[in-house]
């Protein structure tokens, strides 16, 4: 005899299962009919019913007993309060699931989800999906009118199995589509970037908490914030609009009023009420770019608006309210700003629940090609013709674009400008080698002055007069910066000399490191005291 027995768990269908007259045998009654199938022996039926339907439950139990003598019907009285209320129904069924002595090693459980209110059916599904009910689902339906008999038909759904996998695959595809959407359809290849976008997609769909986008200028923070908004809008997760503001453009009194609004007469020039950008973003998404530039007063007000969804417009006695999601962008390290007292620590803590670092274009060399195509398409959308880039020209350009010489210091802004320029200069829509090479030269020169910026900063102010510094080659600047750094770490000239010439001093007959260093410094008009500052 079969070792495992089938146990059905189901709710009494207060209407479909009812009936006390002979006529009931002509009808499909989900609970009774499910026990009539030739190939589905039911050892036990756990029939959940309310006190009010006890009579029907007893009749159903007797009818099952008669048509399926091998089935034991256990009546389980369970109250739902309002069977259309999600919380009550879920709670009640969850209690049942927790209290039921499941023996999955001996019994196969099937949960009948055809009876009960839709809310009850959904809750049963959820409990089975979360394995609170260690059961498969069974769905039943009346037979086609042509066929005789009230037994109807049924199908068993195993949430662990393939059909469900196909549904899950559909969700994955949707997630992939969403990720692709966030990338503006650009087929990026950089694994770190793709992973980042997947995380952002997940957070965008599942969270309303603030998001902090970090990254250099032109890395696409603003674009990404807008795509996140559009993704949420396509999923009906936001009702309001997308409001974008660059905090670096907000200064003084007007910063407060731009963000939080003002009442008429709040200050000179406030000729009428202004609701402010936070209010405008109510129900939508507010993108504050360069949030590190925000003044301390505005930061305090913003924190309150985030935590309490309320703020006080300038000159107003009454608080205004707005429920918005915040995305903040920054290209500087806010932790440093916090240490120097320029940024509120509590606001940063509130904002960096989800922090994402967007890499610059130079860090994603494999993504330059797809982005080049994206930019060419963009030009095509604007002008109607797509600039033609011959294969050789394209390869040569990409070789440069991916090389360390291409700094892409303004990231996508650089690429965008570069493609626009090449497209404009290409007569007849074809980008020639000459145009491309000219563009490379232009890029090189535009990056050159900016390129020494980091090294200049590493030579402490006041050590070298600006005129002397300007005359130095980059070659010398870099070397001098390192030498000065070592000097500043060392107690004496000799100690610095030992460190600086550590490899060659052993081979020399006369060890004169201090002298060598002194002479080197003298070439720039510097002495030991001068470089110690």
């Amino acid at each position, binding site marked *: 005899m079969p070792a495992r027995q089938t146990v059905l768990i189901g709710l009494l269908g207060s209407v479909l299962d009812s009936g006390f007259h002979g006529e009931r045998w002509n009808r499909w009654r989900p609970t009774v009919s499910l026990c009539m199938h030739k*190939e589905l022996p039911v050892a036990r039926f756990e029939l959940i019913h309310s006190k009010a339907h006890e009579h029907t439950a007893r009749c159903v139990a007797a009818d099952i007993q008669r048509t399926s003598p091998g089935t034991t019907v256990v009546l389980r009285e369970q109250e739902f309060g309002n069977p259309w209320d999600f919380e009550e129904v879920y709670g009640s069924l969850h209690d049942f699931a927790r209290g039921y002595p499941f023996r999955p090693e001996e019994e196969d459980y099937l949960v009948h989800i055809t009876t009960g209110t839709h809310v009850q059916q959904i809750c049963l599904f959820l409990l089975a999906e979360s394995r609170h009910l260690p059961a498969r689902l069974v769905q039943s339906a009346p037979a086609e009118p042509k066929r005789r008999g009230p*037994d109807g038909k049924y199908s068993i759904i195993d949430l662990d199995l393939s059909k469900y996998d196909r549904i899950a695959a559909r969700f994955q595809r949707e997630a992939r589509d969403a990720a692709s959407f966030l990338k503006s359809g650009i087929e990026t290849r950089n694994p770190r970037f793709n992973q980042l976008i997947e995380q952002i997609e997940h957070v965008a769909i599942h969270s309303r908490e603030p998001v902090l986008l970090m990254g250099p200028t032109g890395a696409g923070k603003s674009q990404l914030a807008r795509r996140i908004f559009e993704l949420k809008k396509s999923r009906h997760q936001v009702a309001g609009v997308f409001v974008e503001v660059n905090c670096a453009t907000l200064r003084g009194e007007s910063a407060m009023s731009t963000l939080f609004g003002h009442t008429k007469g709040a200050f000179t020039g406030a000729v009428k009420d202004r609701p402010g950008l936070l209010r405008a973003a109510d129900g939508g998404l507010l993108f504050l770019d360069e949030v590190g530039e925000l003044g301390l007063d505005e930061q305090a007000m913003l924190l309150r608006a985030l935590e309490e969804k309320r703020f006080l417009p300038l000159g107003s006695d009454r608080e205004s309210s707005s429920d918005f999601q915040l995305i903040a962008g920054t290209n500087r390290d806010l932790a440093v700003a916090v240490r120097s007292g320029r940024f509120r620590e509590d606001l940063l803590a509130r904002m960096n629940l989800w922090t994402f670092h967007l890499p610059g274009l130079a860090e994603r060399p494999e993504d330059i090609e797809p982005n080049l195509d994206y930019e060419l398409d963009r030009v095509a959308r604007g002008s109607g013709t797509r600039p033609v880039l011959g294969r050789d020209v394209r390869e040569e350009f990409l070789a440069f674009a991916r090389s360390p010489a291409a700094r892409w210091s303004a990231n996508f802004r650089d690429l965008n400008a570069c493609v626009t320029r090449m497209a404009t200069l290409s007569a007849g829509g074809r980008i020639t080698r000459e145009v491309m090479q000219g563009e490379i030269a232009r890029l090189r020169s535009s990056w050159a002055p900016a390129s020494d910026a980091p090294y200049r900063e590493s030579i402490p102010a006041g050590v070298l007069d600006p005129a002397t510094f300007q005359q130095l080659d980059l070659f010398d600047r870099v070397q001098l910066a390192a030498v000065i750094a070592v000097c500043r770490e060392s107690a004496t000239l000799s100690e610095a000399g030992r460190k600086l010439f550590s490899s060659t001093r052993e081979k020399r007959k006369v060890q004169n490191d201090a002298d060598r260093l002194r002479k080197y410094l003298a070439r720039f008009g510097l002495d030991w005291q001068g470089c110690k500052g």
Partner: protein
Amino acid sequence: MLVIDGSQGEGGGQILRTALALSLQTGKPFRLEQIRAGRQKPGLLRQHLTAVQAAAAVGRAEVAGAALGSTTLEMHPGTVTPGDYHFAVGTAGSAMLVLQTILPPLLTASGVSTLTLEGGTHNPFAPPFDFVADSFAPLIRRMGPSIELELHRPGFYPAGGGKLQVVIHPVGQLSRLDLLDRGPIQRRLARALISIIPRQVADRELACVQQHLGWSEEECRVESVTHPTGLGNVLLLKVETEQVTGVFTGFGERRRSAEQVAQEATDAAMAWLRAGVPVDEHLADQLLLPMALAGGGSFRTVRPSSHTLTNADIIRQFLPVDIRVEQESPLAWQVVVASR
């Protein structure tokens, strides 16, 4: 061990029941393979399991593969043990089919048996109670055993709820039976059984009987089931002749008119009456097994059904008998069962 192909001929169920009965009777183990192969739902169904369980209980048998959907079943019979048995069969099966499985071995068992069966007693695709009681049982009595059947309550599809009791006084050896002529008709009776069905349905069915077969009003009777448990309707035509009683049935079903129900029964009766043979199609099916157990017998019948022929094949595999089927005339066949 005897290996039987369960996919042959028409019936999965019929092969199974015949094999179970013969195995208990002969003590021969068997393995049934490819049970209901090629069907939409292959393998054993619930009603088959009920029959297997009943056979195993009566024959103290060991069974392997008795699981739902199983396509192979093996049975090692023990000793057929008479006694009091109670089997409850659900909607999915007929109590009469369980009886068909366990009755033959109990006819020659070592003592009296009392069977209480619950479930469907008048189901389509199974012999109705009245056929077994009025047509089959009298012939069994002529072979020696005493068998009494009592219907406490009819059970119809789908509500079931029927109940019957069968008392069997066995004999050591069944005696030969020959049914070559039926003799003159002695009595005719048409009964329209209704359970929670309007009386006019029964009246219309009986009107058809009078019209098609020319039976009189006195030969027609409406019987309303007392204390009904579910809906049901069946039209039973009984023709008693000197040698044998023919029972022909029309089953009432949803979306089937009273006239269609009546025609099913009258067509079957007419075919038998016209052929002039004693044994009808369904009785032929049932008689082969006891005749083979008796070691011999013969009967004249209508064109044998594929059910009957499959049955004969299974019997030949278990018992040392020949079963010869010969056509005598356009409407009549002769079946002879003889020891090898």
